[in-house]
């Protein structure tokens, strides 16, 4: 950074100089690596914990997937499975439901970790659940990823300005609007948008993710259609997301405003815009990066309903379909994928933070 970087909190450079040997010595000489290793260890524990909670949560719930499967097969193929003990045993094995709970858990985890195998799905039997999920994953990542990042950028910028120009009318409007709307489900906005733009004005499509007359592929027509169909669901996430980021950024901004280094910058005769972008904003967008990772799970929750409303072929719609058919493996698989994605995103952001923020001192 340039010499103008904010003279923020002074970093204590003195390290515990304990003369230790081997690994510990290396770690104390490479504090960043030590931090990364510890953070990665925590990630593994969290991931294991979350996947285990999810597994037992679904296994301890009442409901008999084999019975459901046989019913589904009967309905779909008029397959007269007089559920003999043999057939049930075979399916139980295939779905990883034989043995006691602990064996089931170990088998499930082994398959998941070693082969990325989530077991056969029910909604699309015998396609494995991971295939069903991987088909819908890009849609969710595209929709949710782009709109969440856009909401974050917009919210942080507007929130910083709202905090900076506190007391002005525009700032007051933005703040109060954010307080009123930041906790509204995305779904509400989506519904209003659909009503206005799709049904009343007929401008934009209300269902699906692309025009079914266009062949999916890398072509301008297809990409254009994806963008057009993604506009309304994306917009509903961006609007509400922006409001909640405005609110929290403003909350971070206001305590910073009286700091000495800002007074000094002003006394030095720097332009207001420069003080805002180089001095104040840099101190409040960093915590927001961490907050972004933490909010991803919450954003995913809201996204499920938005996808459902638009019949968007992403994870949310797959999840709801799977739940309606009591498809254990797919439900658990979607939950696992969501957990994995969110925790990994948080890990990456945490590892990125020391590179962005010179003050962060995780090692000790």
């Amino acid at each position, binding site marked *: 950074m340039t010499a103008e970087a904010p003279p923020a909190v002074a970093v204590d450079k003195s390290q515990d100089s304990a003369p230790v040997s081997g690994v510990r010595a290396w770690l104390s000489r490479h504090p960043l690596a030590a931090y990364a290793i510890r953070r990665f260890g925590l990630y593994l524990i969290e991931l294991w*914990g979350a996947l285990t909670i999810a597994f037992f949560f679904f296994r301890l*719930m009442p409901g008999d997937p084999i019975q459901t499967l046989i019913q589904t097969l009967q309905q779909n193929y008029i397959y007269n499975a007089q559920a003999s003990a043999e057939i049930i045993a075979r399916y139980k094995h295939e779905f990883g439901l034989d043995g006691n709970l602990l064996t089931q858990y170990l088998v499930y985890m082994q398959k998941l970790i070693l082969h990325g195998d989530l077991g056969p799905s029910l909604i699309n039997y015998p396609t494995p659940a991971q295939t069903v999920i991987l088909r819908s994953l890009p849609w969710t990542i595209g929709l949710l990823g782009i709109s969440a990042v856009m909401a974050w950028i917009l919210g942080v910028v507007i929130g910083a300005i709202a905090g900076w120009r506190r007391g002005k009318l525009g700032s007051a409007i933005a703040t109060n609007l954010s307080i*009123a709307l930041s*906790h509204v489900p995305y779904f509400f906005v989506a519904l209003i948008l659909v009503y206005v733009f799709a049904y009343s004005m007929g401008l934009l499509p209300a269902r699906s993710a692309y025009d079914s007359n266009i062949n999916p592929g890398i072509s301008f027509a297809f990409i254009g259609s994806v963008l057009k169909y993604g506009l309304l669901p994306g917009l509903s996430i961006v609007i509400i997301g922006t409001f909640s980021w405005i609110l929290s950024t403003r909350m971070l901004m206001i305590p910073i405003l009286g700091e000495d280094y800002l007074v000094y910058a002003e006394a030095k005769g720097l332009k207001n815009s420069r003080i805002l972008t180089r001095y104040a904003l840099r101190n409040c967008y960093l915590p927001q990066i961490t907050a972004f990772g933490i909010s991803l799970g919450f954003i995913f929750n809201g996204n499920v309903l938005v996808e459902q409303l638009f019949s968007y072929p992403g994870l949310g719609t797959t999840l709801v379909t799977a739940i309606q058919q009591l498809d254990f493996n797919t439900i658990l698989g979607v*939950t696992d994928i969501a957990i994995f994605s969110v925790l990994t995103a948080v890990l990456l952001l945490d590892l990125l933070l020391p590179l962005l923020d010179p003050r962060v001192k995780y090692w000790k």
Partner: protein
Amino acid sequence: MRLLTAVLRTIRNSRRLATGLVILALLVLVALFSPLIVKAVGGGQDPIELAAYDKWQVPGPQHLLGTDQFGRDVFAMVVKALAVSLQIGAIAGVISTVVGVIVAFVAGYKGGWIDNVLSTFTGILLVIPTFPLLIALSAYAKNVSLFQVGVMISIFSWPFAAKTIRSQVLSLRTRPYVDLARVSKARDIEIIVTELLPNLLPFIGVGFASSALGAIFGLVGLEIIGLGPGGVIDLGQIIFNAIGTGALTLGAWPMFVVPIALLTLLFAALNMVNIGLEEVYNPRLRGVAGE
């Protein structure tokens, strides 16, 4: 009495908190009088009985918000549903606040490995997407009562309360008056109840407001995919009906706009209470340091 005046002074000092509480009180009043309002709308008969009136009537003096696909009066339905939504918020809010407070106190006060385990667990529940777990739970638990749904939702909303309160317990634990109580041989439970709890009331309020918010949010989500409790109508279910019966294409906008507006008002009020309380007890948020 002293507590009451303190509360009143707090409310007078924060316009945001006061506005939130007034809106909340109005909504609760409407909910409390909902049986009377429904009766008045029906004028002798039950306005939310199936086929009470003609189907799909447009809003007019007879039916302020029109009627739905079964010929029920939408206004009466909305009023009654508001009461249900508020009940769920209250039930789940109380349960998750109690659980959150207990976890926060045990973790924050005891510290050590107990705190590590509990905080990691809370952190995991906060970060992972829990909505799939909630919908799965309610898909299997068919025909549940309102109270049971409240309990189910609390399973996922207590971490919000726990996290807020734990950080406050951590900072209060080291205050001199707590040390004083400790050297004067007060028992842990005495310290928690007489020294810590009163100072944490506003944060418990914040915890309650945010978990009530999360609970209503969760129930609306469940209703919208058709997995709510049976036998009762809440605001989410009216929205679900509106989508399912094509009210959007028929132009019957009151059926989804009014519930959405009411819920938005409720969310706004709870959020105002939240932020108002935080601002009152954390002056750094109100003004600017050094001014």
